[in-house]
């Protein structure tokens, strides 16, 4: 169940692992497509719907995957079935919940006026409002909010970005890079305000006024909220499956019902020690969890997953990070700088192991860092910091 990269990866992996039984993809929007471009190339208009499809049209027939563009209304694991809106019961010995998430609504008076971005239709709607001279207020300076602000300003909109955290993204990329990235808003003409919206009221002319906690008010032709996601876990909860801000799964994607698995944004990992992990909300985590669930649905061991990785594109720069740069739990940071400008940041544990790395426009450094982490190596701090050391040389 689902039409994103978790569902697609699971279907693909099931076939790759030799499963030759019936395989149905319940994907309300039809053939699965890739979501990262919705806040990047697709939003900017450099990629169209065909370009972001996760597979060529013929792939589904070739791999005998039936795409059913419908939404399930109930899980019936006791009957080995899923119920569709018209009452049809779809037989299923194993069900994968990869229903993703919905954007977190802006829970303030008038907040329903805010646009959000999750689906292709949302991106299409944004294309209509991010126009020259439009006064756009973006609430939330995380990855989505930042990418939308970047796209909006490239269309000639007057953009104000509102987020209480200054700078955002510190746990993901470290303080130095977070500051550099946050400063890019001002460099590109996006006004950044460290506050939170308290309410939105409509003006007579179709525009809105956004009142902020700092006492100021912003006039807006359009408001976009990028303040996180809420997992689409209702059907699991209704079926008696354990849910806590996501469908709880183990590393193999198994839920508390043996016939039901979960992957992607809807899922939340319960570690072997019982501690609930933060939901992984990134693309690669969705791919890997879909693949892991596919393996375990077949009774096979899921593949090893390495350190988590994400990327973001804004203002023409490419940001990547692997692992964590959150130093609150310990470790020390090594910066790679050129002329005082941070290019990359590394977080090292006290024993010298690499906990995470982030970089702007230095993707090979991140590829090196991933391998260092996955192989449990202890990199040389001076080499990490030295811009003259190529990424390849960080590995033995």
């Amino acid at each position, binding site marked *: 169940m689902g039409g994103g990269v978790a569902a697609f990866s699971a279907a693909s992996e099931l076939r790759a692992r030799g499963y030759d039984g019936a395989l149905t993809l319940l994907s309300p929007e039809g053939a699965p497509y890739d979501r*990262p471009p919705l806040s990047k190339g697709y939003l900017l208009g450099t990629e169209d719907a065909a370009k972001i499809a996760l597979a060529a049209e013929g792939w589904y027939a070739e791999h005998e995957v039936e795409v059913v563009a419908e939404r399930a209304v109930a899980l019936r694991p006791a009957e080995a079935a899923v119920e569709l809106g018209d009452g049809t019961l779809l037989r299923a010995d194993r069900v994968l919940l990869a229903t993703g998430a919905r954007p977190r609504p802006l829970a303030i008076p008038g907040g329903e006026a805010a646009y959000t971005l999750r689906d292709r239709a949302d991106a299409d709607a944004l294309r209509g409002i991010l126009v020259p001279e439009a006064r756009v207020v973006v609430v939330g300076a995380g990855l989505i909010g930042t990418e939308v602000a970047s796209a909006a300003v490239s269309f000639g909109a007057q953009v104000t970005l509102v987020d209480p955290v200054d700078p955002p993204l510190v746990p993901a990329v470290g303080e130095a890079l977070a500051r550099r990235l946050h400063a890019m808003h001002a460099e590109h003409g996006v006004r950044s305000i460290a506050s939170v919206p308290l309410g939105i009221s409509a003006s007579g002319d179709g525009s809105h006024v956004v009142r902020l906690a700092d006492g100021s008010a912003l006039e807006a032709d359009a408001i976009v909220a990028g303040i996180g996601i809420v997992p689409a876990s209702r059907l699991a909860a209704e079926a008696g499956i354990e849910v806590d801000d996501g469908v709880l799964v183990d590393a193999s994607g198994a839920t508390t019902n043996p016939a039901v698995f979960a992957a992607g944004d809807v899922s939340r990992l319960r570690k072997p020690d019982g501690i609930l992990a933060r939901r992984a909300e990134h693309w690669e985590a969705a791919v890997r969890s879909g693949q892991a669930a596919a393996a375990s649905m077949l009774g096979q061991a899921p593949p090893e997953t390495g350190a988590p990785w994400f990327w973001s594109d804004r203002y023409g720069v490419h940001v990547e990070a692997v692992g964590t740069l959150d130093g609150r739990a310990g470790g020390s940071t090594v910066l790679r700088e050129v002329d005082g400008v941070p290019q990359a940041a590394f977080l090292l544990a006290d024993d010298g192991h690499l906990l995470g790395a982030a970089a702007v426009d230095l993707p090979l450094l991140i590829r090196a860092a991933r391998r260092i982490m996955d192989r449990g190596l202890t990199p040389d701090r001076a080499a990490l910091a030295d811009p003259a050391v190529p990424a390849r040389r960080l590995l033995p």
Partner: protein
Amino acid sequence: MSEGIDVGSPDEIEAGTARVVEPEDSGFVDPIAVFHTESGCFFALNDTCTHEEASLAEGWIEGDTVECPLHSSSFNLRTGKVLCLPATEDARTHKVAVEDGRVVLYPGVAADPARAAD
């Protein structure tokens, strides 16, 4: 299109790196990346990732694969096969051989996937 192009001597392309042959030099419509693997083999693929605008020559070359520097799709250097998302299309291969001590690229001629290592 079967005319070979001299790309240089094998040691001019450092192992683990790649050199891009531009259309004006190859006569082929797309830039071609000529890869020199750590094990000493030469392979050639269309340089632009099949997913988005990124140069595979600037990717991470390891074993017989290259990982795109933008979104980490990997391609098999021998066959051009895409090995993981987000790319969904295989990369086009070109024949490359070491002849008389020179790396010779045959733009537009598909590589023989079964060929032995150089």
